[in-house]
């Protein structure tokens, strides 16, 4: 299902060199789908072409807003946000992990190779690996695995130790181990016991929390609450710190509409520009 010719990204010339090093400005661009592969049960990995310089500077946590409709249709009207799962500067592509959920993501999941996608991005901030951190614990729930795979790639490249923990209802909902760098220790739990620990992943984290210098998480909001409850007794003075990625319904993606706000200790923030990554202790639930 790989078609390297399908739609090299257009308007690459408009991509600026990036302001201040790592953060590339958002652009609206069109890129072609070059590969679609099944992953994680009913989800799939969708790879599209994108401007090379943009791909080169992508960092874990950033996301793109995809227009999930045909040219002749106005439904759904607004774009849908998707985190970057993986980027490949050599091929000039980026990959999303898409779970068909409602009409927008279902439309996207049905697109064949060759489809040209209208995409806005990269948007948002990034997960930040603290300079002195050696041991990283990544906790994924569902498609929340996407930005954490990108982060695992980054961390392994920097020679850091990574434990990737993931829970799901059954084995089919787990990320295939082959999608993670081989250096990563993969810890899994399933509610039906079909793979790994029977129960929630938060029940097996104790040793890893003590080991970790930094925790990164991405998943639904209830997962953050149970994660916080599970690790709170193990943390000393807020350590290890936890960075999470927050999911909000979005319209503009650039801080203009204030649809996506999050209450934090620093006030009300637009999670599409000040987030989606926040320190767990900063967010007011």
């Amino acid at each position, binding site marked *: 299902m790989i078609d390297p010719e399908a739609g090299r990204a257009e308007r690459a010339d408009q991509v*600026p060199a990036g302001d201040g090093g790592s953060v590339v*400005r*958002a*652009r*609206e661009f069109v890129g072609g789908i070059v590969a679609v592969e099944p992953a994680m049960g009913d989800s799939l990995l969708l790879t599209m072409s994108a401007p090379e310089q943009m791909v080169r500077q992508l960092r874990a946590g950033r996301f793109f807003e995809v*227009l999930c409709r045909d040219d002749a249709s*106005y*439904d*759904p*009207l*607004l*774009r849908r946000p998707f985190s970057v799962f993986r980027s490949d500067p050599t091929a000039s592509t980026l990959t999303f992990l898409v779970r068909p959920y409602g009409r927008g993501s279902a439309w996207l999941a049905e697109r064949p190779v060759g489809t040209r996608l*209208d995409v*806005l991005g990269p948007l948002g901030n990034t997960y930040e690996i603290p300079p002195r951190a050696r041991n990283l614990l990544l906790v994924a729930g569902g498609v929340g695995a996407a930005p954490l795979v990108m982060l695992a790639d980054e961390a392994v490249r920097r020679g850091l130790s990574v434990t990737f923990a993931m829970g799901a209802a059954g084995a089919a909902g787990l990320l295939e181990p082959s999608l993670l760098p081989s250096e990563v220790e993969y810890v899994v739990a399933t509610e039906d016991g079909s793979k790994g620990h029977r129960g929630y992943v938060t029940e097996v984290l104790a040793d890893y929390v003590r080991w970790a210098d930094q925790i990164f998480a991405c998943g639904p909001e209830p997962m953050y609450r149970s994660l916080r409850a599970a690790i709170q007794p193990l943390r000393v003075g807020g350590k290890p710190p936890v960075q999470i990625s927050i999911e*909000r*319904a979005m*319209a*503009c*993606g*650039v*801080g*203009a*509409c*204030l*649809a996506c*706000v999050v209450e934090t200790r620093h006030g*009300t923030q637009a999670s599409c*520009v000040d987030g989606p990554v926040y320190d767990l202790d900063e967010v007011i639930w």
Partner: protein
Amino acid sequence: MTEGRAPRGTPAAAGIDLSVDLAPNNPHELRLSNPVIAASGCFGYGQEYAGVIDVQRLGAFVSKGVTPLPRRGNAMPRIAEGPAGMLNAIGLQNPGIRGFVKKYPRVWANWRVPALVNISAESVEDYAMMAAVLDEEPGIAGIEINVSCPNVAQGGYCFGWDAEMSAEVTRAVRAATTLPVIVKLSPGAVDIVGVALAVEEAGADAVSLINTLVGMAIDVKRRRPVLANVTGGLSGPAIKPVALRMVYQVAAAVRVPVVGMGGIMGLDDALEFFLAGASAIQVGTAIFAQPGMVIRLIDGLEAWMAKEGVASLAEIVGAAQPQEKSQVVGAEDADLALGAVAAG
């Protein structure tokens, strides 16, 4: 300085004049290089889109609604979607007029694109106070009054639904500033033509319409309204036919320029609004979906005019109005038109 400063009707270099003056009766004038404006609440304070599109090419932009005091906005979720439309209940989250003037006008003063400031308040005095504050500031090309706000002195009845209340706000703002003043009409008005005529009489340099229509969505699984605020403002293609009808009726009645908006997604929609009688248009929700569209719209309009042999926009503004009405139309005629619609 810009080509927009050329006198009205003077063809630009390409032989096509896209410029428009939205305040011909005001000594300050409100001359735009082209008739494409980014709508309030859909373009932040202009800076948010600065990296995404060439903001300076717009005819103008309208900043997010500012209020007398800072507002935190509504609880989440603040948006939902319907067929070809979106509902928003942002709740006018903004830093308040004092915080606003410290931050934005000085940035805009260095911009080529005219910045219009959208103001919202719950009393006539507060509208006037904000206009007086803005009058002192550099970098502001004009004020757009959002009258779709509850009038606390009238038990929360929306200013914009009532001709006299809308006129009162307009008079107070007019007295407080010499800046061009656009009054943004509410589609919730029982008689929007009556409101338009009243604000024109009260000193509005132009009228813009429409603001969002009140709607809601229900989450069947949760059996609850989707929006925390229960109701929200409907915008996007879903409201275009209603917006177009209102622009057509208002343009037939008033002499001041009309700025049309509501569901404009591209050139064809924009042309409909011009033909209905709009001298300029605003684009809101479509910017969220396709920010680059507003720039393509300017280029597309120029190309269309060249192809159709239209030298100046004025040639097509209101061209869809009945011919005999295109000169002077009174309120009675517009009321007749309203009646005809209601009967249909």
